[in-house]
């Protein structure tokens, strides 16, 4: 697979992953760019990568957390969700605030499960955790979101 093909296939999900972690568009772009630069050098060196998707998610996640650690004290101001399906901007703000209230590791599992529609097994592979850990993080996140947003 060429770099262009890899970008076209995975970049959108990687960007969302980085955005959910950093909650800032520019930082998400930096994280994605850094991951693809790493991939490009691996491809040039003809290094074997068994499964590209987890490789890229791990790279993006690492870079996003590094960026996050660097600016831990400065507040995030980006909106990460936008309304569709008849939802209002006020509701989007509430969802945004609720997602922001979750720890990063729960937030990313919510993204990967709800928005990217991945199974807990696959989430485990992408994040280097067991499927049970992924499911448990999701369960905690769901409880917290229910608390904050209401719902069943």
């Amino acid at each position, binding site marked *: 697979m060429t*770099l*262009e093909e890899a*970008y076209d296939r995975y*970049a*959108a999900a990687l*960007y*969302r992953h980085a*955005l*959910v972690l950093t909650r800032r*568009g520019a930082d*998400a*772009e930096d994280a*994605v*760019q850094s991951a*693809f*630069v790493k*991939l*490009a050098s691996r491809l*040039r060196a003809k290094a074997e990568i068994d499964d590209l998707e987890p490789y890229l998610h791990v790279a993006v996640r690492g870079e996003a957390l590094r960026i996050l650690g660097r600016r831990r004290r400065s507040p995030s101001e980006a909106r*990460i*969700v*936008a*309304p*569709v*399906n*008849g*939802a209002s901007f006020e*509701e*989007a703000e509430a*969802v945004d605030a609720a997602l922001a209230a979750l720890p990063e590791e729960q937030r990313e599992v*919510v*993204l990967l499960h*709800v*928005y990217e529609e991945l199974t807990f097994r696959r989430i485990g592979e992408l994040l280097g955790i067991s499927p049970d850990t992924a499911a448990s993080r999701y369960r905690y996140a*769901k409880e917290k*979101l*229910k608390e904050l*947003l209401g*719902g*069943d």
Partner: protein
Amino acid sequence: MEIEDHLRRFRLASPPARLRRAVLAEAKPWRPWHLAAAAAVLLLCSAMNALSEARLHRLLASGGEPALEASQASQTAGHIVVSVPPSIRAESLISLRRAMEVDGR
């Protein structure tokens, strides 16, 4: 409403188009031959410059007749040559030499 259904009423942002361009541009392999080609062109230019300067210096030092050489070349090529009196050629050469001395400083 289930929390998942509620969350799906919102979408997450997509990467901007400029990110693709930036990623593909930055990830381009570094090609040393680009630099080598540019260096070769620069080297050629400076060699040609040095050669023409040396030729001019030789002509000035010998008090030579560049106009004569030029007129001979032009006649060979079938051009019409307007002859310039030697005194004017000498004056031009002297002013050129002065100009080059000023530049050399």
